[in-house]
């Protein structure tokens, strides 16, 4: 009771990274609150889930196994969580800010009248004083998230309603094994008690999931282009440079919105968060929403026409000049000196 619950996202029997990241965060929050960490797996053929999640410190794993529960559809998964949360009364419930978590979370929060904060970038525990009524709430979940296009950061709390629900994007929290020998308890739930047949109203008739070809998150060097790149063709310059030095290509939201790069390459608050050892920002002015997704890079090089671009303030090296001129030179002098 009053534990921390994490909804597990599962694709073809594999627990998603974002869920393992949330388990890692959930484990540390559970230590702080002296409660247990629960994980909930809803799907089909779940025999292999336990060994994937127990090393992350899961104390109780709930399994709801039925072939109709995979692939994910909104209403059956909602029904499981709503009933399970009513029984178990977790104080905190976390899920990925993915197309599944952002479909499921709002529906569950609406049914339970518990607040939900989307796309949190940080989760902490702290107290909250309701000044009007002079009430103090102890050990609430601070749900910290950017708002207004990233220009402000808001700390949200849910003083009176449980569970306190939050979604977090992939790559925002760190994934860390707690103890590879850790074992928790498995509780199997009967789907009949949780999901009415009338919930199976939306049918998935076709599905093409691709393993992402882009691995920006794991790349030690990221070369990123912004709106200043000017065109999709100019991005080829970055891909070329990336293949020479062994890097991955990222993009700012403005560049993705303009169609210069694909969405899966987007870095920033509404994309991926990266922490490479080298980040090369090309034609990126440095809107806050972008900087938030790359500021923890060990070294930052900014290439920009504008000597006053905001990104320069956080860069280790600022090259003032045209990207079209600078990148070919970087390639040339890399090749010349690397032998």
């Amino acid at each position, binding site marked *: 009771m009053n534990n921390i619950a994490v909804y597990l996202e599962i694709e073809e029997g594999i627990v998603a990274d974002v869920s393992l990241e949330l388990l890692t965060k959930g484990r540390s929050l559970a230590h702080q609150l002296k409660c247990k960490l629960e994980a909930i797996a809803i799907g089909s053929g779940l025999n292999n889930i336990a060994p994937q999640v127990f090393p992350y410190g899961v104390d109780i794993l709930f399994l709801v196994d039925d072939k109709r529960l995979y692939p994910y559809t909104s209403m059956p998964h909602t029904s499981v969580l709503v009933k399970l949360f009513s029984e178990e009364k977790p104080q905190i419930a976390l899920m990925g800010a*993915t197309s599944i978590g952002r479909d499921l979370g709002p529906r569950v*929060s609406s049914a339970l009248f518990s607040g939900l904060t989307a796309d949190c970038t940080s989760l902490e525990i702290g107290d909250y004083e309701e000044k009007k009524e002079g009430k103090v709430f102890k050990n609430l979940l601070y749900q910290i998230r950017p708002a207004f296009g990233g220009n402000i950061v808001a700390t949200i709390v849910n003083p009176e309603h449980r569970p306190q629900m939050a979604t977090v994007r992939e790559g925002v929290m760190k994934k860390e094994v707690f103890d590879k020998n850790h074992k928790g308890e498995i509780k199997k739930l009967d789907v009949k008690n949780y999901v009415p047949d009338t919930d199976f109203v939306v049918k998935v008739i076709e599905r093409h999931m691709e393993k992402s070809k882009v691995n920006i998150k794991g790349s030690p060097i990221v070369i990123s282009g912004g709106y200043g790149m000017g065109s999709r063709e100019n991005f080829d310059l970055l891909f070329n440079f990336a293949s020479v030095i062994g890097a991955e290509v990222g993009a700012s939201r403005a560049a993705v919105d303009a169609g210069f790069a694909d969405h899966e390459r987007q870095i920033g608050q509404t994309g991926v968060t990266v922490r490479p*050892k080298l980040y090369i920002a090309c034609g990126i002015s440095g809107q806050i929403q972008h900087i938030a997704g790359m500021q923890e890079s060990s070294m930052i090089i900014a290439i920009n026409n504008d000597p006053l671009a905001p990104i320069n303030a956080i860069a280790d090296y600022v090259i003032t000049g045209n990207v079209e001129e600078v990148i070919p030179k*970087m390639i040339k*002098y890399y090749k*010349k000196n690397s032998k």
Partner: protein
Amino acid sequence: MGLQIVVLAKQVPDTRNVGKDAMKADGTVNRAALPAIFNPEDLNALEQALRLKDKHEGSTVTILTMGPGRAAEIIRESLYRGADNGFLLTDRAFAGSDTLATSYAISCAIKNFPKVDLIICGRQAIDGDTAQVGPQVAQKLGLPQITYAEEILDLKKDVITVKRRLEKGVEVVEGKLPMVVTVNGSAPDCRPRNAKMVMKFKHAKTVSEKQEGNQDYTELFDTHPYLNITEWSVNDIKSDADWLGLKGSPTKVKTIESVVFQTKESKKLTADDFDIESLMRELIANHTIG
């Protein structure tokens, strides 16, 4: 068979192009410096609704928005592009609503419509990026939902087939009406204004807007009833005051801070060959590259 389609839309500050004057010295947002626009994904949603109307004779597209009086602007914008009528839900009682209280108010307003086959809205609004209102409205109305829609592929009798665009792929799903569909930005852009519709609806106004103007439009609105944009206050919907506004919002904002990043002492370089070559040598020497 005609479809009764409701499109949920929101007027939002344009957070995509935030200038230097968008933040006040005290760290709060200067809303006046941000232009108010039609939430982009709601326009994608409107286009999907209009395409259904084109295919299914006798269909009606109704715009429903909640916001201050000036949000009537996006209702007019929708009428110019082919929507049939619009409703503005506006009241001080809704102030301070989080997504849950917003969804509750909107779902109560939708219950005013005698028949609704399909509710379509943008996946999320750019001022909050939460993507919560669509699914929460669906839950409050007891309806199923299809989120992240890129295209409504087919609608036959009461079965809708939708292509969804997800982070890592696509899905085609089908379900029965009535249904809530939320539409992605990757869906086709909304058609432009239609000149005839602009002429027809340019004087469309809410009651409050009519009162603001100096001219007397009474006769015009009597002879052209379609120019009336209906304004609903809290008294026009059946709702429980405990579920509205601040009171109906389980989430509370504890603090708001403006974002400040740690600035670094940076080394300034030019695009000269000498500068670039020394940089590359340095990066190779300290094993940052290679």
